[in-house]
């Protein structure tokens, strides 16, 4: 008697596979282990075996290494990927690199985002990596779906994934003498990736470990702004300023605690949000805030 066919739904990307392989064919996640979820609801990104293979139509990709993983594409002649040029690690002679046209170049240049997106066309191998230890996230994007990614997190994407960006409207300003200084804790712009017609693959490199949480409608959580990796477009963002109580301890500690404030990003569901465990400190001199985007405030 033939054994009953078993299917497996990847708990990272939702792809249904035959369960024969030990890894998800669409994102490379290990499928024979239970999801690791903290009591607070954060799910660790599923483990990935070294040299995991992902099939992308006629092309394929392999993720190599564990500390600073490398995304090694084997591009078919008709396929291409795009990337920011400084993540290129190596390539074969046969892979042709060209510039990808992008709109809003001046706005991107002024806000510190990459103004050039580079495109590599097969046939041949080309590999990418970033410059700090962390995890490589392979995220299949289905038609009709979109994902918002914080600037400088993007590694590469297949050509079926469309790229756009939008204004985050997360900012505050301070005064330095007569000068007004504007601060953008998650950047002025955020990348948005969609798949208009066909499914595509998006690759993100995050620093440290990665955790994902599904927020219910109206559910809110505070995260460090630079810990944000990606979110569903349905998830909204707002600044939150928190001022700790002085706790006594004399004039000096009262003075310093008065100037101290914690800067948070309030994330409100519904939808997914992903954070990284290694993140840059947000620069905040503690100077009086002159103006800001919609925000909440808490004084203890």
């Amino acid at each position, binding site marked *: 008697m033939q054994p009953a066919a078993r299917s497996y739904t990847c708990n990272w990307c939702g792809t249904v596979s035959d369960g024969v392989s030990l890894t998800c064919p669409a994102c490379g996640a290990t499928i024979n282990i239970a999801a690791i979820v903290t009591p607070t609801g954060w799910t660790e990104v599923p483990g990935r075996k070294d040299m995991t293979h992902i099939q992308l139509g006629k092309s394929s990709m392999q993720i190599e290494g564990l500390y600073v993983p490398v995304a090694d594409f084997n591009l078919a002649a008709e396929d291409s990927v795009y990337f920011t040029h400084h993540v290129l690690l190596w390539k074969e002679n046969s892979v042709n690199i060209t510039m990808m046209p992008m709109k809003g170049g001046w706005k991107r240049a002024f806000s510190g985002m990459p103004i050039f997106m580079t495109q590599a066309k097969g046939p041949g191998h080309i590999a990418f990596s970033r*410059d700090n230890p962390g995890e490589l996230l392979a995220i299949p994007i289905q038609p009709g779906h979109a994902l918002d990614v914080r600037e400088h997190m993007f590694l590469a994407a297949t050509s079926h994934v469309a790229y756009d960006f939008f204004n985050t409207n997360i900012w505050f300003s301070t005064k330095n003498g007569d000068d007004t200084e504007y601060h953008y804790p998650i950047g002025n712009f955020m990348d948005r990736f969609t798949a208009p017609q066909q499914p595509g693959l998006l690759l993100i490199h995050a620093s440290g470990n990665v955790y994902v949480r599904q927020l219910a409608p109206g559910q809110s959580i505070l995260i460090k702004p630079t810990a944000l990796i990606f979110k569903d477009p349905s998830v909204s963002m707002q600044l939150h300023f928190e001022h700790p109580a002085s706790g006594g301890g004399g004039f000096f500690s009262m003075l310093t605690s008065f100037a101290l404030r914690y800067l948070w990003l309030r994330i409100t569901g519904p939808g997914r949000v992903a954070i990284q465990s290694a993140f840059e400190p947000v620069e905040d001199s503690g100077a009086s805030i002159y103006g800001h985007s919609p925000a909440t405030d808490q004084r203890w």
Partner: protein
Amino acid sequence: MSVIPPNPAAAPIERLKCGWCQGLNLPTALSCQFCGAPLNLKDVVSESGWREAPRLKDMVEFHFSKSTCQVEGEIVPVAEINLAQGDSVYFEHHVMLWKDQNVPMQVMQLPGGMKRMLAGMPFIISVASGPGRVAFSRDATGELVVLPLHPGMEMDVREHAFLLASNNIAYSYLRIKGLRNILFGGQGMFMDRFVTTNNSGLLLLHGYGNVFERVLKPGESIIIEPGAFLYKDSTVQMNVQMQQLTTGLFGGTAMSLAQMVGPGRVGIQSMYVHHSTD
């Protein structure tokens, strides 16, 4: 059924060959006695032909000359050397982690000190001599690459990437030829060169992130980000390849890439030193 006992005198001595350093080991060995590579695991090779540097087990030990090296930790590994009397190792002094107080230290005499200093290379190479223990590590997540050098080998290494070498390896430096290579090659002006003559020696590198090696055939070439270069056999040629990327509005930019042409080994690191485009 009768079993014929083996005759030790007649049986050939079987040896396990290490796939990384080609050293011959006892059949019962789990790790190579010359480089520490696991002998009971298959090589990890990508579909594109890059081989991962062997993942050294925590606390693995291997030998060179009369001394031993133990690798401790896995995220930022430490090389702890137990130097025998008469053995010594040399290194850049800032990679020293700790040492026994009775291990004597001296400075290696190097030609071209001023040139090296101006080029940003270490102009002082320190030497530690046995007996005693001394340990080394670098300042970022990465892998220890153990390269036992057999007699007659020449190895070129990215500047500041070498952790230590045993005293029977000759150390020199190689000025990178061609103004274009110096200005755009991303390697600086010099590379370290390690040469063995009649004796074997041990060369230890620290690669940032993960380390991969590829053996290029004669004439075969691969293009790499210059900051990813870690080491190569001296037979491998390194040339600069400028990749022009143009757009109508901004005029474009140029990437300088390194073309490596075989024959020989090329090692790269995945967390590379980034060199901005012009």
